[in-house]
């Protein structure tokens, strides 16, 4: 007991049923039923018993081809075979909560449900329930967004052609966020993906605030002064960021004043710190400072609270939930990636022979990263060496080793207790917030400090993919880069066929053409590289091609079940202008 709450609660049975298993007998755990443990007790049970009839219906097509013995055999569902079986990476809930032994009764309903399903299985004939291709498309395209950068914006030639972004929810509501903006007072563009856990409050806050912190960190002293003076005298402010948002990407109106004040305090401090000597601003340093400062502000706001009860609850939710961030800053040929957590930035490089290779521009901060393990062990006393990372999780709970928010892993026990007690009732009722991580001796265990990677763009660097772990746990980076690369170059990549003197029959030609077309058809469906990638991530079969049936099944999962088969996926694909990059290179 206690390995994983999802192991014993009923939903697991469900995916066992549907498992077209891999031979690997090692526990290959599904993404947990919910990201956060506590709701299991309060909501999961009734939720599943209520929801059961519908899901079972839905799932028969999935299990149709599954041998019965397999169902009872290894419990391993793997919709991303190559990754799941070949690597030790275990996709699962980012944050795990081990319930008190008293909750062990959870397991019980499993048996009941099990029989129930079996009964259903024989009673009802399998029904086909497929989404039509247009339905699939409307789901996939609901959140897609594209932005084309004007080639010459009046100031600079941009090295970015534009970007495509999209996200596919698995949680309801989705916990991932994305942001993109152009810096107006300095050069360059900011793009980022944010993966929230324990709710979306933190990722939402980070997605709307972080870029301001970065932009402010990058501003020269004079500009900061000008802005501060404008605020002081009530004049119109200089715009700092030009956002490029999908209509679904919202900003919190209520907190905007609070956020502004925190930001203003930050630039006031920056002004004070700078004693006149105008030094070149280091982007790397600016990024690190911005990350740390924002996390600090989130923490402070929660400690101080707010007289407005709505805001007070909001800042607490932000602080008690968490988010990882992967942000790229592109200015000419200078590309900085600041990463906190396990989202990833991947550069798509086209080799001279036209093939694609992937260059990773960030390191995952999780148990698979030796250096992170090392860091954690060094930061805490030797006595904790065994407990600080357990079962590949921080304190046996949290998957990413760096994150925004998550004050449970940052504050002292005293502080946590004090804030919760003085906080609103909702907070007090929440099992998760009250729960103190085990072996919690020397906080903080968690930091938001990013690791910054610098890369100087070359003409062969065609695009950058920023994506949350929802993508990377289903697809290998090499496949990601290849699929995007082939999508972006489109048909040009396929050599035209010429008969040129060979003996070819109509039938042979027809076969050849049909094959080429099926390859292309999925490309043609999408106008957005990120959508195309999601289509592959969710719908790829063992041959690496999109299988509509599979796609349809994955997308028609009811809200409550989707999270067990996949994680939220958020992708930004930034396309570079090779000509501009090349020109930069030649200048120097």
């Amino acid at each position: 007991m206690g390995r994983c709450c999802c192991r014993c609660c009923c939903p697991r049975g469900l995916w066992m049923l549907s498992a077209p298993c891999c031979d690997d007998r090692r526990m290959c755990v599904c993404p947990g039923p919910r990201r956060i443990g506590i709701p299991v007790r309060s909501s999961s049970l009734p939720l599943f018993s209520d929801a059961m009839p519908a899901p079972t219906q839905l799932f028969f097509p999935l299990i149709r081809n599954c041998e019965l013995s397999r169902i009872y055999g290894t419990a391993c569902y793997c919709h991303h075979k190559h990754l799941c079986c070949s690597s030790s990476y275990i996709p699962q809930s980012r944050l795990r909560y081990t319930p008190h032994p008293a909750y062990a009764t959870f397991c019980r309903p499993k048996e009941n449900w099990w029989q129930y399903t079996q009964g259903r299985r024989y009673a009802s004939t399998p029904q086909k329930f497929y989404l039509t291709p247009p339905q699939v498309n409307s789901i996939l395209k609901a959140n897609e967004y594209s932005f084309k950068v004007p080639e010459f914006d009046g100031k600079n030639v941009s090295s970015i052609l534009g970007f495509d972004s999209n996200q596919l929810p698995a949680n309801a509501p989705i916990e991932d966020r994305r942001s993109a903006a152009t810096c107006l007072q300095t050069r360059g563009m900011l793009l980022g993906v944010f993966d929230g856990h324990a709710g979306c409050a933190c990722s939402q806050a980070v997605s709307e605030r972080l870029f301001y912190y970065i932009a402010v960190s990058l501003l020269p002293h004079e500009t900061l002064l000008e802005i501060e003076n404008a605020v002081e005298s009530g004049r119109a402010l200089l715009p700092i960021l030009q956002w490029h948002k999908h209509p679904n990407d919202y900003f919190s109106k209520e907190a905007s004043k609070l956020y502004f004040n925190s930001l203003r305090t930050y630039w006031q401090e920056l002004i004070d710190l700078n004693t006149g000597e105008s030094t070149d601003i280091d982007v790397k340093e600016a990024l690190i400072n911005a990350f740390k400062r924002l996390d600090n502000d989130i923490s402070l706001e929660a400690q101080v609270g707010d007289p407005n009860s709505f805001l007070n609850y909001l800042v607490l939710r932000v602080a008690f939930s968490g988010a990882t961030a992967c942000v790229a800053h592109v200015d000419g040929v200078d590309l900085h990636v600041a990463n906190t957590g396990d989202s990833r930035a991947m550069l798509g490089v086209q080799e001279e022979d036209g093939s694609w290779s992937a260059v990773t521009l960030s390191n995952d901060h999780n148990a698979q990263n030796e250096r992170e393990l090392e860091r954690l062990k060094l930061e805490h006393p030797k006595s904790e060496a065994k407990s600080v990372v357990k079962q590949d999780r921080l304190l046996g709970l949290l998957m990413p080793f760096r994150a925004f928010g998550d004050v449970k892993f940052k504050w002292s026990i005293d502080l946590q207790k004090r804030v919760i007690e003085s906080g609103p009732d909702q907070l007090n009722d929440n099992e998760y917030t009250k729960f103190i991580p085990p072996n919690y001796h020397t906080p903080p265990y968690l930091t938001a400090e990013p690791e910054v990677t610098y890369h100087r763009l070359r003409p062969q660097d065609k695009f950058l993919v920023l994506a949350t772990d929802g993508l990377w746990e289903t697809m290998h980076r090499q496949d990601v880069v290849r699929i995007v690369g082939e999508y972006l170059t489109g048909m040009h990549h396929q050599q035209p066929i010429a008969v040129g003197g060979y003996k070819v029959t109509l039938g042979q030609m027809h076969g050849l053409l049909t094959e080429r077309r099926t390859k292309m058809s999925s490309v043609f469906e999408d106008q957005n590289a990120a959508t195309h990638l999601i289509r592959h991530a969710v719908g790829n079969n063992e041959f690496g091609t999109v299988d509509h049936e599979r796609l349809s099944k994955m997308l028609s999962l009811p809200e409550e079940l989707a999270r067990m088969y996949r994680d939220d996926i958020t992708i930004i694909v930034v396309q570079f202008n090779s000509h501009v990059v090349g020109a930069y290179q030649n200048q120097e």
Partner: protein
Amino acid sequence: MADYSNKLYYQLEQETGIQTGYTRTGSIFLAQTQDRLISLKRINAGLNVIGIPSEIISPKKVAELHHLLNVHDLVGAMHVPEDAVVSSADVALALASAASQNGVQIYDRTSVLHVMVKKGQVTGVETDKGQIECQYFVNCAGQWAYELGLSNEEPVSIPLHACEHFYLLTRPLETPLQSSTPTIVDADGRIYIRNWQGGILSGGFEKNPKPIFTEGKNQLEIQNLQEDWDHFEPLLSSLLRRMPELETLEIMKLVNCPETFTPDMRCIMGESPAVQGYFVLAGMNSAGLSFGGGAGKYLAEWMVHGYPSENVWELDLKRFGALQSSRTFLRHRVMEVMPLMYDLKVPRWDFQTGRQLRTSPLYDRLDAQGARWMEKHGFERPKYFVPPDKDLLALEQSKTFYKPDWFDIVESEVKCCKEAVCVIDMSSFTKFEITSTGDQALEVLQYLFSNDLDVPVGHIVHTGMLNEGGGYENDCSIARLNKRSFFMISPTDQQVHCWAWLKKHMPKDSNLLLEDVTWKYTALNLIGPRAVDVLSELSYAPMTPDHFPSLFCKEMSVGYANGIRVMSMTHTGEPGFMLYIPIEYALHVYNEVMSVGQKYGIRNAGYYALRSLRIEKFFAFWGQDINNLTTPLECGRESRVKLEKGMDFIGRDALLQQKQNGVYKRLTMSILDDHDSDLDLWPWWGEPIYRNGQYVGKTTSSAYSYSLERHVCLGFVHNFSEDTGEEQVVTADFINRGEYEIDIAGYRFQAKAKLYPVASLFTQKRRKDDMELSDLHGK
């Protein structure tokens, strides 16, 4: 046209002794769907009456005629046994040598730099090898015609655009195909297949054509472009589905040979409106070979006599203006036109591309109220208004030969026109103003128009603009604004043609001012018995027939706006008014009319309602029913011709003669009797008319009359001699004494023929117990 070509090519070999590869193979047009079969049946009915043998055959018969065909998915086919195939290069050679024998000089490898023009008349051609003097120049440069037209100092706009066209050549079959193997057209599969040296030649018109040379940098040599197998894949699939045994056949080559297309799928011929002696024949929509011979004949007649022997308005260059010459427009339009070659052609089809070019200032207002639009000469016109609670079928599903989905909508609009008042935006009509300092305007117009225009100021005259043969070049209404100024309203597509005609016939050195004011006015048509009430309330002026008789024009105020030209006519025969509104007042007047009209039950209506009203009242329309080969006497418009108005006018002699001799055809209105509008195929146009079982003509237009609750078809009735087939005089007696039938796709419906509209039927009263509360609602 194709028929003449066929005969020409047949004779050519005998005349010149040059092999043209002419083989009478026959052709089979396949139908995979019932709708396609209906379309073929309609064509079949049309072919039979002009003496081209053809028949509708069963799939089984198809298999007998062509053993390679897979016929499992067919519902029928049309067989045209006399169709032939020729080799285009050989035909061209034969024609050239025949021409040379008759003294024509042909210059090879010579490129035209531009055409020399003096005073609007062609004087010669400047080529890279020197000048050639000439009186006539024919631009038949195919895909280069557009550029050549533009190379002129005064550009001649020839709207066409090239698309890549692919066809496949294979090596011979194991047992080579017989040379007499019929040509197959599988329009539903978008392909054609014919024998080619024992193998096959197959191409098609794909759904996603590739337009080419949009930038105008045309290829200089006729050379074939790159093959694109991926693009050809759907057509190849379709071919293999039709002839599965070809799987093992070896490919020889995929030919990519650009074809030119026009904005309306019909070729372009005739004289340029700007330059005299500059003729055009181009844009054959890849039917160059089959229509070439016939088109050449018409063009030759045109150059020699001034007009061809058939009505070719639909092909006339002047149906287009400079407005169709945008490359972007052409590029987008040909992408729609090319697939349309093999698409099912259903009634009331509107082009989807190149739209919203010319619009009325009320466009957005009307669109927001549910207007559905059609386009004429680039101008958007409302068809009907979809009520908010009603959904119509999607575009593709709405294609039908039967009762259309908008039937009820138009019915309620028509009803409102008859009982209350409707407003139709008719801004698209061509509007000219002719003014002079002296009396020249009147003199010129009297000479150009058949009716007497010397009427008191404020009167409107319906009149024809006739040619020497008495045929209608234009049918218009002219209002005398003052002694020296006239306002002329013509059909929308007359903008270029009428302008050219007037310019051509106006004295060169007069102080006559001709102005195109189409864009200056928005036209609203208030139709219905309550139009009087709406207008008098808005103008505080009595509008009753006593004060404002029919066919009267007055400038007055409507709402706050002054200077609105109000005319008591509606183009439908219903009571009402046309308002010609300077465009800046358009929105104001429309708003006022709508708000005041509310209590009279006003609503928007569209052209479909107008059309139904017009046709049931026997109002023929220029371009559809009447053209330059029909005279006023032939369509019962003697009253609009004043032969004795005291001066000569163009066409008078011809009319005098016709009056004496009688007419050889007569526009007739046929009311279908045993036609069930719910279940039977609807008439469209081009349906053969039979009198006592004998073919006498074809319909030119048709509409459902909601008051007669019958279909009404207009069409010309001839009197062909039973023995010789010669045309004889048609008398009213001849029309009235006969049993009529209309052939719709092979099925004949009984019809009553009328020479004058049915008068009594239009004053039906609604029964009291039919009234409902909803009749009290505003619409």
